């Protein structure tokens, strides 16, 4: 047996997040590559960083919700939607449920179903 130290637990947690981040990165690349053959690593990394930042600030923990945030950011970046920052701010408005915040934001960005 061995005792798990706080540093090791932190590492495990980092592995968990990294695992999802890798999946999300593949997803972002697959979407962006529909428009440009070789999306830049810099832009992908920035999209992921901002996604997790918004997810943390907005209290999003569901995998599909976090992936939707990445889509919203791609919509902003690639489509150049005007007034997008106020729209993304909706994601931080905790008076609404996560689903509702995403739906409102997607609707304003023209991604709604």
């Amino acid at each position, binding site marked *: 047996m061995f005792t798990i130290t706080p540093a090791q637990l932190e590492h*495990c947690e980092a592995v*968990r997040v990294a695992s999802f981040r890798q999946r999300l990165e593949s997803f972002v690349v*697959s*979407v962006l590559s529909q428009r440009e053959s070789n999306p830049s690593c810099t832009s992908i990394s920035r999209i992921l960083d901002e996604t997790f930042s918004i*997810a943390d600030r907005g209290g999003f923990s569901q995998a599909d919700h976090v992936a939707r945030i990445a889509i919203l950011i791609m919509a902003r970046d690639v*489509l150049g939607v005007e007034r997008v920052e106020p729209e993304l701010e909706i994601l931080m408005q905790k008076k609404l449920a996560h689903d509702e915040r995403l739906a409102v934001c997607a609707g304003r960005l023209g991604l709604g179903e």
Partner: protein
Amino acid sequence: MTSVSRSVRADLDSGSRKLGDMVDFRLILRYAWQQVGESFGSGPYKSPITSCPFKAIVGTAWRDAAKIVFPGHQHYQNCGVQSARQIVEQASGQPLPDSELEFLNKAIDTCGVEKEKNHPKDSGGSDAGRRQCILKQYGVASKIEDASLENVDRALRDGKGVIISADVAVLWQHRPGVPPQTGRHAVVVTHGHYDQDGNLAGVWVNDTGIGQRYFLTTEQLGDALDSGSLELNITDHRIWPNN
């Protein structure tokens, strides 16, 4: 490729969604939005993973079970028989009703364990084959494997029952208060001790010969394995708790 990108590509390949040379990227994003749930699910994105390298291999239940099943000091020359009994009891999850002598006599009758003139005091000698027979009599399937550190390590990680053979001159050389002796001896290796990287650093032993449970470093275990019959009894299935 994700199901999202497959769907998007299928649609793009149809050629119906292109606006000149420019792909309608908003449409792609819509597809992605609609199918993202299928790709990622609604579970927490920080979901537990099983590959955490620091997962404890041996937990409290396992350590407690190793103590509970230990019968203490043997009364005859039946180290291997008593070792097999521990494996049987741990595998079945309950102690056997037989006394130590009753269990020994059955092993003599059914598996050819040695019966000496001064029975039962000097009786009970066994080899790996006879121990395997005893285990089988009680429904515990097992194999006889080469006595290597790798085989012991692998079996312990799988929670299997392990009996090793060693010369007591080597096995007991680090035990305080145990006078120097020689002779073949069998003990149960109950569980491993692992370092920060998950490597086997040593093992815990249930030794009925001196009525003690003690720790052997990996080096000491290797020396012990080299001094015995060079055979291990390893159960086919897990017998120890999974935590």
